[in-house]
């Protein structure tokens, strides 16, 4: 029922969304933590910077990323100097783009959750002999669970639907950088509404089930109220 290139796009999309979400969580968590805990004056500046990728239209953000990643851009030159290739039009480039674009959705909920937990449980853990690292993983993170869940949901879903950035820095190359969202868009553009409906419906149903599972699991193991 699914055309082979749509299937390829689906697989690529899931791969991109999964990897991006993981990268987002890994990168976003320390940023969120720093934002929640620091008393430095620069905090509002960083807070503002984190939200900034959102305000540019995705295609435009993609355009600037293209300039940045391309052979004449700073990162592109660096890559070339290091004996590599520029990252535009590669899967890695897509991941970079998705991560930058979805960062606010990941950082902010986690930051809020860390803040809501506050210092007291961490202090208790410290008096029980837990090092900063230890208490981060055994107290701060589990208590911020709901924030992580929201972050992962928003990050994953946003990457699924992500489009402008990916289109721009990916170049819409089937099998390499053509993700499902672009495929659907192409079908719509090409007036192939049947396939567009099919793919959209499938994507919606799949995402719905996935989100349902996540939320259902979350309900089964309710996050306690602090």
């Amino acid at each position, binding site marked *: 029922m699914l055309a082979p290139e749509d299937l390829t796009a689906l697989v690529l999309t899931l791969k991109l969304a999964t990897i991006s979400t993981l990268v987002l969580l890994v990168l976003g968590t320390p940023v969120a933590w720093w934002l929640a805990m620091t008393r430095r004056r620069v905090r509002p500046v960083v807070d503002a910077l984190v939200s900034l990728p959102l305000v540019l239209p995705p295609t435009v953000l993609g355009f600037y990323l293209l300039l940045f990643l391309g052979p004449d851009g700073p990162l592109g030159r660096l890559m070339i100097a290091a004996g590599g290739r520029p990252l535009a039009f590669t899967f890695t480039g897509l991941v970079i783009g998705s991560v930058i674009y979805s960062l606010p959705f990941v950082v902010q909920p986690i930051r809020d959750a860390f803040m809501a937990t506050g210092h*007291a*449980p961490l*202090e*208790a*853990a*410290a*008096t*029980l*002999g*837990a*090092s*900063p690292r*230890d*208490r981060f993983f*055994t*107290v701060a993170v*589990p*208590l911020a*669970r709901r924030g992580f869940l929201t972050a992962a949901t928003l990050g994953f879903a946003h990457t699924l639907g992500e489009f402008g950035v990916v289109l721009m820095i990916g170049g819409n190359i089937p099998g390499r950088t053509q993700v499902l969202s672009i495929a659907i868009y192409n079908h719509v553009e090409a007036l192939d509404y049947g396939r567009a409906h099919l793919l959209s419906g499938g994507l919606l149903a799949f995402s719905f089930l996935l989100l349902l599972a996540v939320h259902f699991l979350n309900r089964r193991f309710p*996050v*306690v*109220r*602090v």
Partner: protein
Amino acid sequence: MSIKIKCRLDRGVGTNGDPGFRLDVDLDLPVAGITAVFGPSGCGKSTLLRCVAGLEKKARGMVKIGPRVWQDDHTFLPVHQRALGFVFQDGLLFPHLSVLENLEYGLKRSDADRQTIVMDEVVELLGLEKLLARGTTDLSGGERQRVALGRALLTSPDLLLLDEPLAALDRSSRRAIYPYLERLRTDFTLPVLYVTHALDEAARLADHMVLLEGGQAVNSGPLTEMLTSPAPGLAHGDEAGAVLPAWVAGFDREFHLARLGFEGGELLVADTGLVPDQEVRVRIHARDVSLTLEPAGGSSILNILPARVLALIPDSPARVLVRLAVGDSVILAAITHRSATALGLEVGRDVHAQIKSVALL
């Protein structure tokens, strides 16, 4: 060897010119035994404990536990490297862990070879068996405090900081825990800083006492002195009384009584399973001591001791505290001015002290 706590901390300067709160103490406490920290609400007791634990990064001063320097001008050992147990005033259990996991949290993070305090004992003592599998969010107030105490004990710390650990507990739960806390002192020579509002509790447990007021240590010293000294402090009103070290000298098996020897005589107390020669402490409330000029017969009062008046300290318009020498010990009697006048009490006078009840601590 002693515990040195020198600590200065300014808490946020208040609005409208209110200078805020400042803690400024310089204490030198014996390393063995329990030190009661006493004082009115808001005097800085919790803050003092937080400073000792290293939770107040801005506190300046020195914290030395015996040979170990936790903090001085050059050192600031982070909290998790200070071998301490802390029971917070509001418990602070981890809401994402079960009761058992809360208890294990500290246990797992302490050196196995230092673990002198074992799980089963703590669980039984604190009556936690039925709670182990439960979450911590719907525990009752007292249950929460018991878990917090257990969690702190299980770290087998070098110093125990207890912030009103028993305040939410009923008397019998408290009574069950006292002997255990005493064992920490005797068996493990574990020093304890113990914030409490209940003087009974302090008298029962503490060897030493610090009196805080407005962030300053207005008085500090051995418990027995603090309780009978006329200095600003505690020898007032209903709380006044002496604490005497004593030993078990013999028994009256028929009536389940024990004879306690102390520096100055003997006392009869209920035998609650004492063993010969056991060292105990007794508390003699000033209000439980009455004075007669001649030893009275035909009375239910068993303990009648010859005593000499050392001082008369007016305590209230109606009442006077009488410091008495009983042998080498000092006890207090609280009587009315009217009785004092009627008996013609004056310094140096020989009287008989009738001790209605003796609290075995």
